[in-house]
């Protein structure tokens, strides 16, 4: 059994034809993932008991000719910011190094109900704050395509696991690009659905008005299948949307003729020539498929970085206040008073990037600065959302880069927070507007580094986004 070559369909077919069992799949995936981890550090820990328990159930269902579910026997890696009952969930932080959640995230419950095998938890930037996975308290992840380079972040472990082939699909979280950018850097598909499409119950909160859960996969179809499983209204998350969930994968027919695509002129300046060339080549492919391409304008783009890093850090400073040494495992042994205990726990527990963002977020919310920073950023956010709403009056989807450059070297940007923040320019705009966006591999640089193209559509128009991505992917296979 060759885990890296498997797809969801191939697994289903093999299971139903009794060529292998779900238990075989779980055992082999775990063995392969544990062996591969020495190279990437993509996983922080494995969950063999859980994977095998689900696998046994799937095997029983198949033996009884019951439907084992749309993800039957599929090895799934899960970013370690998504809680798993009884399985350590660290958020890449020293503060939660020993945290064992007492409940499951809704996305996990749905994955397992559908027959998916949760094989392990993946490495990430601490509390999902970063663009390279170098901010993990448990060491960086290496890009499986180029081991001296970062896998992107913050869901770098999930992207690396899928790229290396140790998991068939993975879950990540995206606040400003944390699924799309690592997908682009590792050469896999990564999807950030509409805000509210997937329940965040059990996703450790970073910036609640921006946080999403979404899938990684090696094909558009597999990503679409996973999204359908995890999407939909959830009693436990008041921000989860009621909107019906289409069978995205069944709607992929390769026909995109007549769809109108927008190319934002603000995104095309400042691209490295290779990334720009690959995006333009992808646009030519869409034209060849009968899409109509036109230039559009998203005039507020230049203000997006400042807007995002005010709103996201303000929300983070509030969300991370709960790590105070009282409820969540880590407490500093220093300090006599309650206040000293709080300060020492947080000072010793948080890494440099989390401290930077807590400080920035607290500052922009503090008396005298609230209007100039936070309120202003919320107004600019409305303008960015309006830009997209206007664009989708004219076009069905937007084609854009994911990152200005391919995977950079480990250590290259780690001491320069502004350079790191600026690299998020193409992903944070969609996050601020809450629209669905995804990264699809669109080629490699001369050095062999993967480049992702971003597709964005209007709220809940994931079907159009998947159809375009799938049609493009088919042309790359030929």
């Amino acid at each position, binding site marked *: 059994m060759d885990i890296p070559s498997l797809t969801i369909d191939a697994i289903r077919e093999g299971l139903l034809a009794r060529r292998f069992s779900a238990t075989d799949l779980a055992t082999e995936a775990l063995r392969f993932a544990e062996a591969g981890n020495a190279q990437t550090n993509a996983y922080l820990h494995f969950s063999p008991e859980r994977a095998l328990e689900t696998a046994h159930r799937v095997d029983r269902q198949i033996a009884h000719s019951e439907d084992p579910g749309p993800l039957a026997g599929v090895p799934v890696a899960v970013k370690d910011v998504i809680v798993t009952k009884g399985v350590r969930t660290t958020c890449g932080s020293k503060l939660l190094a*020993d945290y*064992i959640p*007492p*409940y499951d995230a809704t996305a996990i419950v749905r994955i397992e109900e559908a027959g998916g095998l949760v094989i392990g938890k993946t490495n990430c930037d601490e509390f999902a704050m970063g663009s390279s996975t170098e901010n993990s308290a448990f060491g960086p992840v290496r890009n499986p395509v180029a081991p001296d380079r970062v896998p992107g972040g913050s869901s770098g472990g999930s992207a690396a696991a899928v790229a290396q082939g140790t998991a068939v699909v993975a879950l990540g979280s995206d606040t400003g690009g944390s699924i799309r950018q690592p997908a682009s850097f590792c050469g896999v598909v990564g999807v950030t659905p509409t*805000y*509210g499409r997937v329940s965040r119950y059990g996703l450790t909160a970073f910036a609640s*008005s921006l946080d999403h859960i979404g899938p990684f996969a090696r094909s558009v179809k597999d990503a679409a299948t996973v999204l359908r499983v995890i999407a939909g209204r959830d*009693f436990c998350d*008041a*921000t*989860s*949307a*009621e909107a019906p969930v289409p069978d995205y994968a069944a709607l992929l027919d390769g026909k995109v003729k007549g769809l109108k695509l927008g190319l934002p002129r603000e995104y095309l300046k400042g691209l490295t020539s290779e990334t720009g060339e690959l995006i333009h080549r992808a646009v030519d492919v869409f034209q060849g498929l009968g899409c109509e391409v036109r230039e559009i304008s998203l005039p*507020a783009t*230049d203000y997006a*970085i*400042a807007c995002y*890093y*005010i709103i996201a850090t303000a929300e983070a*400073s509030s969300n991370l206040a709960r790590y*105070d*040494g*009282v*409820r969540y*495992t880590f*407490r500093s042994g220093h300090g*006599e*008073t*309650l*206040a*000293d*205990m*709080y*300060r*020492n726990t*947080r*000072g010793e527990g*948080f890494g*440099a990037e989390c*401290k*930077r963002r*807590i*400080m920035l977020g*607290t*500052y922009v919310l*503090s008396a005298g600065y609230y209007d100039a*920073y936070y*309120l*202003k*950023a*919320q*107004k*600019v*956010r*409305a303008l960015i*959302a309006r830009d997209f709403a206007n664009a989708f009056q004219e076009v069905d989807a937007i084609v854009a880069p994911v990152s200005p450059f391919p995977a950079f070297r480990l250590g290259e940007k780690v001491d320069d*927070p*502004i350079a790191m*923040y600026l690299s998020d320019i193409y992903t944070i705009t969609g996050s601020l507007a809450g629209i669905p966006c995804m990264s699809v591999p669109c080629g490699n640089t001369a050095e062999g580094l993967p480049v992702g193209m971003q597709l964005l559509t209007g709220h*809940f128009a994931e079907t159009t986004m998947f159809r375009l991505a799938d049609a493009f992917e088919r042309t790359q296979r030929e």
Partner: protein
Amino acid sequence: MKITEKEVRYVAGLSNLQLTDAEVGKLQADLNGILEHMDKLKEIDTTGVEPMAQVLFDAGETATLRADVPVPPLGNQAALANAPQPGAGYFKVPQIIER
């Protein structure tokens, strides 16, 4: 200079973060750089624009509220399982009030 060392220490206090002197210096430099970039927001006219606090769709105001039905809670033992210092069914913290 957007932010002074004194302000960095003040914000660290608000954030309940114990910082070393080296961290204060580094954060002052980092925050200055970042806040300078954020001044860019002054260029854009937002007159008459309503602030956007949340992604909103066309839906009734209470469309996402669930029915008010009680569900079983987590339970005391599970809730305390990750406490650094549990005791007698509670979270223990350093003494706050002198007897």
